[in-house]
């Protein structure tokens, strides 16, 4: 008996801020920034200068705040993000928005590997390319990548949607569960139990919504859909050569 998971269409509430606090990481520690963000209330706004690739920027946000990082972020930018909106005007390191729950994270440049890993909800937009393992173990997050993604992306992806406007690397969607993948360009190879699936009207509609939420103008009809063949859901000795 297998009951499939419904992926809900999410409302990524956009936050409008009135006044912005300016934080310069050249002369104040990351810890102070994060502490201030944890004490913040809805509607507050921060502009972060000189991030210098520092790790754990704007992690653990739990309020409707907006944070704009002007420069490159290191590992785990916007980790475990909730409710607010973080924009990186630069590139992001490993584990961007890992385990994001809600809200929005937008990287204008490229993101390194494991972007949006294990994310449970919210929207992650990467205008450039994403490295390997993008969307690994995703659990409900929506991801839109403007460029290409690396190998082993959406590995063991459980729920949520991954949209790739460029090409996908090897072993896309290996051991995937119920997440849905849309790729506009080529797929180097599909991983175990991941197959191409027909694009029906509801898929074109949800893809159009995701592209619009990411501010993109790509045509949904140009994409192909990939998902689980559901052949590995129950262990069987006859599948032993699939792994």
């Amino acid at each position, binding site marked *: 008996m*297998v009951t499939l998971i419904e992926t809900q269409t999410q409302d990524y509430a956009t936050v409008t801020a009135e006044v912005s606090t300016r934080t310069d990481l050249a002369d104040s520690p990351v810890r102070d920034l994060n502490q201030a963000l944890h004490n913040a209330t809805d509607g507050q706004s921060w502009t972060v200068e000189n991030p210098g690739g520092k790790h754990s920027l704007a992690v653990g946000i739990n309020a409707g705040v907006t944070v704009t990082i002007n420069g490159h972020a290191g590992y785990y930018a916007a980790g475990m993000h909730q409710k607010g909106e973080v924009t990186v005007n630069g590139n992001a390191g490993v584990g961007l928005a890992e*385990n994001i729950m809600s809200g929005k994270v937008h990287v204008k440049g490229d993101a390194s590997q494991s972007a949006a890993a294990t994310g449970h909800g919210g929207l992650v937009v990467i205008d450039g390319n994403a490295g390997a393992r993008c969307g690994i173990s995703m659990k409900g997050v929506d991801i839109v990548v403007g460029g290409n993604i690396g190998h082993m992306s959406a590995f063991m992806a459980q729920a949520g949607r991954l949209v790739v406007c460029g090409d996908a690397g090897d072993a896309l969607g290996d051991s995937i569960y119920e997440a849905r993948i849309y790729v506009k360009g080529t797929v180097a190879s599909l991983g175990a139990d991941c197959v191409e699936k027909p694009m029906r009207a509801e898929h074109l509609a949800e893809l159009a919504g995701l592209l619009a939420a990411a501010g993109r103008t790509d045509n949904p009809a140009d994409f192909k859909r990939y998902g689980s063949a559901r052949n590995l859901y129950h262990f069987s000795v006859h599948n032993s050569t699939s792994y």
Partner: protein
Amino acid sequence: MTITSLTPGAPAVSAARPVEELGLRESATFDRATIADIQRAAATGVYDIRGWGAKRKVPHFDDLLFLGASMSRYPLEGYRERCDTDVVLGDRYASRPLHLQTPVTIAGMSFGALSANAKEALGRGASEVGTSTTTGDGGMTPEERGQSKHLVYQYLPSRYGMNPDDLRKADAIEIVLGQGAKPGGGGMLLGQKITERVAGMRTLPVGIDQRSASRHPDWTGPDDLEIKIGELREITDWKTPIYVKIGASRPYYDTALAVKAGADVVVVDGMQGGTAATQQVFIENVGIPTLAAIPQAVQALQELGLHRKVQLIVSGGIRTGADVAKAMALGADAVAIGTAALIALGDNDPRYAAEYAAMGSAAGFYDDFQDGRDPAGITTQDPDLSSRLDPITGGRRLANYLRVLTMEAQTIARACGKSHLRNLEPEDLVALTIEASAMARVPLAGTSWIPGAK
């Protein structure tokens, strides 16, 4: 085979005679359990999956003895003089370390592997004696958060149910790299235990076999781990202690690297440590005994000058207060129990003998936790079976057991003249076997010889 030892004229061998009386020679290589394993594999084509830790006999705490006080050491009066048992865990970096009343903690076990009642009972029992309990693969349930005074939240490769709200509610965070039953292996929960609630917590379809990842999805190696710990500290405002749990395989290096990565506490789990479901071949053949792991971990901490500053929790085969005392004498700051805690709740109780027999097992042998048909109501998601375990009674039984472990350890510590359990030291111990002596790095009893010592 032919029986040749019978004298001529003796009565014919009856099949009804007990096997012990027949003078048969059982093969040490192909013993009955091995024969059953081969026949089961031939019949099913699938490897055996089971719960518990290594069942093979390995050098263990039983192979150590304490040297009580005598001429050169003063004992403490058993019912007069204090022997304290409290322990502080996580004060290296965290601003809110745990302060436990007994060094015996409850190891991580998942809701999913265990019933909600069992998780609640563990929380109740642990809280009653002032110690901690630990979540597992599958997230934090309101039952265990509500009933646990000190709750350690596991951060696992699967990240099932992981969310920052629960992270902030946790009293400590345990980053799990592995466990003693299966260093290098991920979790496993078979479809029969994936109920709607379990599936919902894990964001998986109901009823499918679930294999959780063996590697963390967003970090690789000790340098990344340091950054990951930094992120978790930032999210929790540097308040919450962060443990790193390793399955014992290379504990000297793993402990040193965990400390370098910034752990407040290192948890080392030996191969006798239990699991809810793993391939038997994995449980019995991967990892090292708890006894061999402790001195290696302690050596790493001592060489870094951080023994007692980064606390060491040891698990894997702790059953008695003597085991607690021995682990601590070898340098542990605390221990964790899993299998023993479930036994205290009623696992493998002979009163379920008939039901174990109906499943082809027996009280004392039952380990098919993956099937979810546990008559004791512990390793199941079946509502009828799990209702057999009353969380209040179960919690009281666990609290009783934890008190006994603590008092037994105190008994030994007083006999060794120690006013606190942590004052026990390797010098209080000797080994009964050469193997245990070499592993535990204490002398063979009656000698000053430690094999391998420089």
